[in-house]
Structures are given as C-alpha cells and as structure tokens.
C-alpha cells in the first residue's frame, strides 16, 4: 500500500455546483489557489471561462469576493484594488488576478507588462488552456504549434510556436515567477503560498488542460498534465528576480509523441510534424538547461531529482525567506 505523502489543505473554499466542464484545469487551479491563500483574498477575473464558471445569479462558487472585469484590464484592475487596500490600511488581503491565456498573452498583455514593470504588489495567475475556449476554441498566442482550433483548422493548423510567457515575464525581472500544473497540487499550492510571502509582482503560469478544446476525455486531464511535464513540453520551475531559475521537478524526457497523440487537437499531425514539435521542445529544454546551469539555481538543479523532492522544497523555502521581506 502506498503512503499518503501529501494532504491538501482541507478547507474547500470553491463550492461545488460551478459551471465548469468536467476535467477543467482552470477550475482545479481555482480550487487549489483558494486552498493555498485562504479567504482573505480578492480575485480579479477578466473575460475568460471563469467569468462564466463562477456561476449565474444567485450563485458564486468562488467563496471569496470576485471582481469580474473587462478583458484587457485584469492586471490594471488588480493594481487599482491593491492600491486602494493599501491606502485604506489593509496590508493583509491578497489580491489575485486570475486570467486565461487570451487575457494574459494577448489582449491583457499590455496591462500585464505594465504591472510587472511597476512591480505592482499582487499575484497574477494565468490558467493557460492554450486557446480562447470560452468563445468557442479560437487560437491565442498560447496555442502551441500544430494545434487545431476553429481558427487554425486541421488543413492549416497553427504555424507559429507558443509565446514563451515565462521568458517574457522573466525579462521584466519580477521577484517571483513559477510554472505549475494541476497534476501536482502540492507543488502548485507550495508555489502559491511562496508567492503570498513575497512582495511585488508575482506570476504563476498554470498548465490547464481543456477536454472540450483539446479533444480528450475529462478523466485524462491529470494524465495529460503529467505527460506535458515529463515530456518537457511544460517544465515545472521557479524564477526568482527574473534571473535565478530553479527546476521544481526533473522531467523524464518521455517522447512528445505520447503527449500529442492523446489529444484530438493534434490528430491531423503527421509524424514529421511531431518530430518538429519534439525538436522545438528539445531546443527549448536545452536553452532552459543553460539558464538553470548558469544561475544560482545550478546547485539546486543537482538536487532536484524527483525522489529528493522533500529536501528540495525545503531548500526552496529557505531561499524564499531571504526574499520574502525585500520590499
């Protein structure tokens, strides 16, 4: 019998009966985020699936105050809310912008960059389902190369690579940046809690599978998330101050093909196109490895073997403490 190694914080702040599709990565992200941060939170949500998921009158599943805002304004509205709280002497409430990839990578990008550059004091969580799912699966700049969407049909799937939002945010030299996945709630919750202890602009990029948009069975959401990590499509990492890269989990380097072939949105791809994706993933991994090796995280990398997770998270926490009161 396996031993239970991790217990989620028990309080369920996200109520059942929300409007999400089964297997929604964005909704698991909301659930874990609320578990990580508790109830003293204001969530700012631009147009995205979550502007519907929260529920129609008279329901609001989120269990905390929700500020539904215009598509392009998540980061600026959150900045305003935080400034208001501070001016009123509330230094406790955590402000979270919670946005999809369209509202983050595309239309909300200017506000995001502005908030990051100003080091606005809130947490920005992007649940990335790699397309405009709420409006019917249109491509975004987070849609990966080769994927089908209704605006990148199978005859001419997306020809461009996914925008590397981690590098973009790292270039803003924000104090804390992390990637997370619904496959590892412990890692996600630890990262969100770490973000809470740090001041300034914090960004968490969450890989959020979408069964209807990616065309797979809802019960495979976690499996697909895990495969994305293991195949290095979506490495789990942290970046401190935009330069100090740390790997959270050493991926096995499984073939990208296994990940691709599980999803209907890639069904049309030929073997040579999958090879091309593998090449992109390998190249990105190589670049990331160089970063990891050349920064303070290098030493940490050696310890990041999966079986030593406990030690590594202790190391990370120690590293965080130094930064947490930088402001």
């Amino acid at each position: 019998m396996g031993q239970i190694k991790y217990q989620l914080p028990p309080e369920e702040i996200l109520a059942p009966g929300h409007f999400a599709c089964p297997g929604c990565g964005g909704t698991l992200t909301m659930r874990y985020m609320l578990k990580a941060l508790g109830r003293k939170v204001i969530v700012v949500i631009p147009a995205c699936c979550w502007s519907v998921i929260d529920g129609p009158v008279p329901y609001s599943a989120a269990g905390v105050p929700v500020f539904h805002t215009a598509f392009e304004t998540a980061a600026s509205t959150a900045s305003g809310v935080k400034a208001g709280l501070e001016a009123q002497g509330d230094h406790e409430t955590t402000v979270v912008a919670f946005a999809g990839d369209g509202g983050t990578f595309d239309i909300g990008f200017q506000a995001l960059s502005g908030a990051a550059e100003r080091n606005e004091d809130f947490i920005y969580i992007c649940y990335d389902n790699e397309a405009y799912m709420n409006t019917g699966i249109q491509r975004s700049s987070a849609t990966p190369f080769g994927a089908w969407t209704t605006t990148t049909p199978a005859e001419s799937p997306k020809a461009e690579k996914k925008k590397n939002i981690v590098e973009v945010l790292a270039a803003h030299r924000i104090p804390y940046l992390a990637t997370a996945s619904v496959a590892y709630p412990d890692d996600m919750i630890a990262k969100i809690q770490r973000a809470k202890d740090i001041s300034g602009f914090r960004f968490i990029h969450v890989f959020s599978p979408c069964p209807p948009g990616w065309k797979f069975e809802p019960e495979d959401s976690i499996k697909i998330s895990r495969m994305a990590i293991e195949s290095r499509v979506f490495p789990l990492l942290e970046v401190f101050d935009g330069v100090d890269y740390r790997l959270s989990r050493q991926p096995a380097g499984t073939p990208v093909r296994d990940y691709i072939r599980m999803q209907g949105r890639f069904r049309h791809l030929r073997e040579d196109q999958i090879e091309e994706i593998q090449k992109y993933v390998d190249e990105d991994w190589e670049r990331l490895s160089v970063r990891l090796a050349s920064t303070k995280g290098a030493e940490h990398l050696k310890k990041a073997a999966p079986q030593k997770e406990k030690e590594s998270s202790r190391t990370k926490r120690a590293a965080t403490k130094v930064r947490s009161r930088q402001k």
Partner: protein
Amino acid sequence: MPLFRIRNGNQMIGEGAVAAGCRFFAGYPITPASGIYKFMIDELPKRGDVAISSPDEISALAYCVGASQRGFKAMTATSGPGFSLMVETLQYAVMTETPLVIALVQRLGPSTGGATQGGQGDVLFVGNSIAGGYAIPVYSPSTPVEAYELTIHAFNVAERLRTPVILLTDKEVAMTSENVDYSALPSVITVERKEFNRTDGETFRTYSLAERNDVPDFAPIGGTEKVTVTGSAHDMAGRLQKNSPETVEVLRHLQEKVSSRSHEITTLEIDSPAKPETIVFSYGISARTAREAVANLRMKGERVAFCNLKTLFPIPENEITDAAGKAKRIVVVEENMTGLYRSQIARLFPSKEITGVNGVGRMITPAEIEKAISSRN
C-alpha cells in the same frame, strides 16, 4: 427554382463580404460575432486572400486600416465590448479616409453585458462614435438575405466614399440558422475605389479635393506616389496642420462627402397600404417581429405601414418623413430600454404621436406591438 441552404446571419455576412471582393479580414473572438471570424478564416485563405487572427480588437481594426491603405477591401467583426476598443481606430479610419467595414453584432450591454443575450443597445453609440459628429454609414440587416445584401452594399459605400462603414446586426439575426433561398439573393454589383491616375504635370496629394464633397483618389501607401496617412488634422497633402483654412476645409469635407450623399447610399424597405394611419419603424431582429405584427393588424383591417430601417445612419430623414406621410401615429420597435432610435425619429415629427415598443434582455413579441397599436384605437 428555390435553392435552400441552412445559414445564419454571420455566415451570410461572410458570403456577402466575399462576394463584395473583401480580400482581407482580421478577427478577434467575441460572441456573438465569432461566426464571421470563423467563416473568413475558412474561406479567404482558400482564395489566396488574407485572414488574420489578431491579439485584440484594437489590433484587428488597425490591421484592416493598414491593409486597406495598401488597397485591400478589408473587414473585421466584433460585438459591443470589442467595438468600444475599436473606436479610436475607427476615428482614425474616418480621418484618414480608409475604406473598411466593421460588422458589429450587438449583444446585451453595457460592458460585458450578456455575451449570449441579444440587444439593440449600440445604435446611438455607433452612429455617434466619431468626435465632432462626423457621419459614418450604418446599415442594419434583419434577415440572412439582408445580411448578404447589406454587406455588399456596405463594402460598395466604403470603397466609393473612402469611409469606414458599420454593418450593425444583432445576436438573433447573426446566430439563428434558418432556410435561405439562394435563388432569391440579389445579384452582385461591386464598386472599387477610384485609383489615382497620374496625368502629365499633376502632383499627387493624398487628400486632393476640388469640391468639398469630393472623394480623393486613392493611391496605396508605399506605391509609386508619396502617400502620407495621418490621424492628425491635415491639409490636402496629408501634412499636419492645426487650423489653416485648408485643414478646416478637409475636415468639412469628411462630413460632407458622406452627408451630401445620404440619399444615394440609403436603402430602406417600406411596405405601406393606401392612407396608413399608423407606421411602424424598426430594424434588425425587431423588424422581423414588427413585420409579423403589421401583417396581423392588417388582417384585422387596420391601415398600418411598415418601414424596415436598413439604413440607420446617416439618418435618412427625408425617406423617413416621406414614409410616414400623413400617418397620425408612429411606433418604433427596438430592443433597448429607452427607445434609442425613436429619439432620432421623434425629432423629425414634432406634431405626431410617437410610441415605443421596447424590450431589454429579451426579444419583443408581435403581440406586444399589436397591443400597443390596437389599444389606442
């Protein structure tokens, strides 16, 4: 022989655009207009034309301005929140005399409103969206066939007058699939913008005018002529100037090239019995309800006329006044709270009785209109 296909308004706007010679589309997802985006993404590349996914609505319209200034017939499609973001570039298109078409599929507003709820609340916002009150043509289809017809008309007016044109529809017309008889579609006449043709000794000026309501000849930017496109107040050469007489003349021209041709670019559907006592004005989805209500009332022997306002702006004042004739009562049916277009009609008829039939967040029923008219007999 009839040739029926199941189509919705969004698809017919797409078909109309292709028929009109649209060769450039930039889109950004928004319900209920995404169907046009999808149609154009599927259709234009097949023809060797361009359909682009933009990162936001500001970019979508700016893409169109850029492509149009290279000579393409260009279109984008959006709904209220997206249109709000486009307004700066729309004004830029007016100032730079850039032909393009915006299909604006209304939903319930304000703000995010109801993405999947219909509405006709954008009508005055659209008609008055240009600082200084400059006129832009606005057309409003009530059926898929009208969507096709008016899209072609919108492109033709845009090209002929070098102006942005709005195709104002609504969620119900755009997203309701129904039988469309292709054999009944109007034949297609397309208009191309007048290109500059150098004659000996002539110098090109981007906004050259002889008369105030002239439409300047077009030359693509980066072509053989030195073109200066600017959103700043400018003289005829496109040079930034504040308030020289020539600059003011160019501004007056922006208004007059459209308003002086109001009659030529207006299209309405008027269905009137002899000596009507009442006339019902409506547009978009509400016009279909109104049409049915009018038919029912006539069967009961009432003399009711109907006008489908396929042209909303410039307000076809003469045509509306003529249509009303000696009718004592005017009824305006529209899906907004305060009777937005009614306020525009009311000022044309200071001595007539004007009634609104309105609904918010729901469609108006024929029975409501019939009741409003019958109860006053």
